[in-house]
Structure formats: C-alpha cells, structure tokens
C-alpha cells in the first residue's frame, strides 16, 4: 500500500517542465539534477515533496523528449507513483523501466494536498481527504513483470533476456 500527499499538476506536463534542456549539464550529476525536478511547472515542488507522495497530472503527462532522466528524478524525489488521466508513451515505458508506477485514472477530482492511498494489487486509489475511491487501468502484463523486478535493468539482470 502506497500512501502520501497529492501534488497536482495540469495537462501536458512536458519533459521540458520536468527536466529542462537548459540543465543538460547536470544529467551526469543526478543528485544535483533531482533538486530541480518539475521546477518549471512548480518551483516549490522539490523542496516540499516527501517520500511516498504522488505526482498527479492531467492529460498527456510526460509528453516530449525520450530523456529517462524525467521519471528518474521524479523517483529520486521519493514519489511513489504518478497518477494521470493519460500519459505519453515514451514517458510511460521509461517510468516503468525505472520502477516508477504510472497509474491511469480520472484525476480531475483529486485536489492538491489531498491524502491518497494506492493499492497497486487491487487497482484502487483512495482519496482520504475527499473520501472518494477511484480505480485505475491495468498496467499491461509485460510492463507489470518489469515493474515487479524494480525496472528493466533489474529484470534483464535476473532473466538475461525478455521473457514475455
């Protein structure tokens, strides 16, 4: 069971808003890069987020670049899952490859600061503040098996190949 506070973002949160190109020089210094996570969407996010919290987006979360640094720094910030109405596909696959769950659900009624509880197995999000229950779409089986190992590198280390 994952538990934490919702940080609400809008539609079309691009990879440029998560880790902009102007910080390209920090990409081999991940702890430093992570201090800027989502900076251009919310400059206070990095200092307020606590381990376990959730990033909650609207439509088309993570659109843009293939830079895997985007889900990587979100995970490094301690975020336990990204919730969004829809997600760009490169970001989706990258997040799962980094062992960061991405849950597709109707996030419109989740408010910034709401306390959430996520049951990954049951596919349920409980908004404890609003007293509401949401269900999220199933993660495809291939991706679920990668997520269960903690990401693609761990998966390949274990199996040596794709076992689909």
């Amino acid at each position: 069971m994952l538990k934490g506070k919702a940080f609400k973002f809008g539609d079309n949160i691009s990879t440029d808003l998560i880790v902009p190109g102007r910080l390209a020089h920090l990409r081999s210094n991940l702890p430093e890069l992570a201090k800027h996570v989502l900076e251009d969407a919310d400059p206070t996010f990095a200092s307020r987020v606590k381990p376990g919290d959730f990033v909650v987006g609207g439509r088309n979360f993570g659109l843009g670049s293939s830079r895997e640094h985007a889900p990587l720094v979100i995970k490094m910030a301690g975020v336990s899952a990204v919730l969004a109405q829809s997600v760009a596909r490169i970001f989706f696959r990258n997040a799962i490859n980094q062992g960061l769950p991405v849950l597709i659900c109707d996030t419109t009624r989740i408010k910034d600061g709401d306390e959430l509880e996520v049951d990954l197995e049951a596919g349920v999000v409980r908004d404890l503040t609003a007293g509401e229950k949401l269900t999220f779409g199933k993660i495809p089986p291939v991706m679920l098996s990668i997520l269960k190992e903690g990401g693609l590198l761990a998966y390949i280390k274990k199996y040596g190949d794709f076992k689909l």
Partner: protein
Amino acid sequence: MGKTIAEKILSQKSGADARAGDIVIAQVDLVFVQDTTGPLTLRQFQQSGITKVANPEKTVLFIDHAAPSPSSALSNDHIFLRQFAAQTGVRLSEAGDGVCHQIVAESLAKPGDVVVGADSHTVMAGGLGAFATGMGSSDVAIAMGLGKTWFRVPETIKVLLKGAFSRGVYAKDLILHLIGMIGADGATYRSLEFAGEAVGRMSVPERLTISNMAVEAGAKVGLFPSDELTREYLEAHKRGRDYQPIFPDKDAVYEQVIEIDLSKLEPTVAKPHTVDNTATARELKGTKIQQVFIGTCTNGRLEDLAIAASILGGKQRHPQTRLIVAPASRTVLMEGIKMGYIPALIEAGAIVLPPGCGACLGVHQGVLGNGEACLSTANRNFKGRMGNPESFIYLASTATAAATALRGEITDPREVM
C-alpha cells in the same frame, strides 16, 4: 486480412504474424544515442550485466545536442562517449558532423529497418519507411546489448493526402495542421501512416519533416511507404542498394482514416506552449518576433536553406529580429555553401551555427531572454524549451520563418514571395 506498414515491418523483424495489439520481440537494425541521453544509456548498459554490444557497426553515439560543448560537465560527457566508442568499437559521430536524425536519414536507416534511438525524434526515419522510434535510455541500453527489443504492435491511423500544396505552403504546414486537428495526444501510441495520391509526389525531405513531428501527436511511428522517390533519395546518397519497396496491403485494417486536401492548407503556426495550439500565419500577423531560428532535424535540410535564401537573398533581416541558421549536417552545410544559400543568408544578416541541436532544446546558442519570442522551424514549443521558461516559441515552416525575419513580425510567406 492485410497489414499496415507497421504490422509488415514488425512481422518481418519478429518472425511472428504481428497484428495491432500484439506484443512482439523484434530484431533491431540500428541503435543510437545522443550526447544528452547517451551517458545515462551507456552507464545503464555497463550495469546491465551484458558484456558486449550486439552489433557495434549498427550502434552509433552522436555528439550533436551540445556541440561544440558549452560547459566542462558536457565536455566530460563527450569524453565518456568517445572512450566507450573506442573500447567497444561502436560508431561515433563527432561534434560538427550534424544532427543524429539527419545523419541517420542520409547514411544509416533503410526502408524496412527497425531503428531505436534515445531521442524522441527518431521517428523521422519513418520518412524512409523504417519503423523508427524514440525510447528511453534503459530500453536503448538493452537493445544495444541484445540486438532486440519488445514492442506492442501499434494500431494505425491512415492519413490520406490528396491534392498539391499551393504556393507558400509546405510539408511543415501540413504536419502542424494535422497536429492542430488531432491534438498533442491525438495519435498516442498509434502509427501514423501517410498515404494517398499526394504521397507519390512528396519528396523524401518533405516526408522526413512530416515523420519527424509524428511524436508531437504522441505517435509511436510516422510511416511513409518506400517507393521510387525513396529509391532516388537513397541513390543520391550513394546507397541505392539499401532500397526495398514497402507498401501497406490494400486490405490493411486502420483504426481511423483522416483525409487532408493539401490545396486547402495555409501557412500554419503553432503558438506557445503546445504544438497543437495552431493558427494560420495570417491570423498572427503583427506578432513581434525577436529571434528567428531556421534549422533542426525538422527543417534544417538543403531544401530549407534554398527556401530561406530565396526569400532573404539580397535583402536584410529586420533590425530588431535576430536570424539564426543551423544546417542539420555537415553535408547540408557544405552543399549550402556551394549552392550559395549560406553566403546569401549571411549577407542577409544571419548567424550561421555549426550543424547541431543546441538552440532547439535550450542548451546553448540561441537561448531567449525574458519575454522574448522566437519563431522557429523546430518541432517543439514547450514552455522552457529554448532555455528560458519566461520566453515564447512559435513553430512554422522555413518560408514563414524567413518572411518573419524580414518583417520582424509573424508574416505569411506569400506576402514576400
């Protein structure tokens, strides 16, 4: 039941009867990274437990996103890429050689290939009939090591093109129009397959511009058939033997068909801060622009330099509008000089950058000031994209960019042609 181009290529490369929705493991023909995604990819490769690159001849490390390097940190990343290439025998494309996608199109990707790159605009090689797609560094690291990756076979949206562009309207206007129509997530994880009588008249450079931006609608790939014009393009680049014809089956199954009459299109502009926020250039007349940027994988080819020179040649850029030109490759730069396009643009007041990506993604060489607006021929106008979240980016064709550089405000190119 027939197959789409995506289904045909993924069937061929997986040995399975690949149909939309299936999960397949496909052989990968070409793998590449660039200098802002490559260091992470190579470190992940080293941590993966895989000891050898599957196919070093078909693995390329490009130094193009920060080239030449603006900082010691990025220079150190470049050292790492060079050392890895020396140790493993993979290919290295040096600073100044050009933008990865342009070199992939000129020299590397073949029709029918599966190409994976650690860069979202890898989709551009779809213009040659390659199943080419951007992936993150973990996926690319494993594809480098195993020579294969997994795909969900995408559903296909057929974009049926008819008619011909009217004067002043280009491939860029078409793709901006399409994205404006279906939205920045309108083709999420779909294959966009371009078809119709107009495709047979569309040059490969035009197709590359269109495929390049397929990802801006969320698409997995943007595929053109491989036809006689593809063969001519490959022959012109001294690799005619890489040609094979690829067409979808007549009875292929499409999720959706979108028809576009090219003759009805107008010069189109994407406004800040999303690519689907489109308007016509006419509607935006009067919008002041401090910087015009002509270049990138989307519109930095010889054909673009020719258009820009035809509009700006013998004239001067507007005094309040900087003009930056970045040819997409060394070959484009050399040809542009020989053809007189580059000298004409320099005389018109342009700053010519070395071939590379830096300005487009805000690393260096064209970062905007607070409140400034840039009209760019690139593919993205996200907030902060060109290095400053307090600035504004408009996207348009090379002709619209050149006309805007002349007038200092967004200008329909038909006014100056």
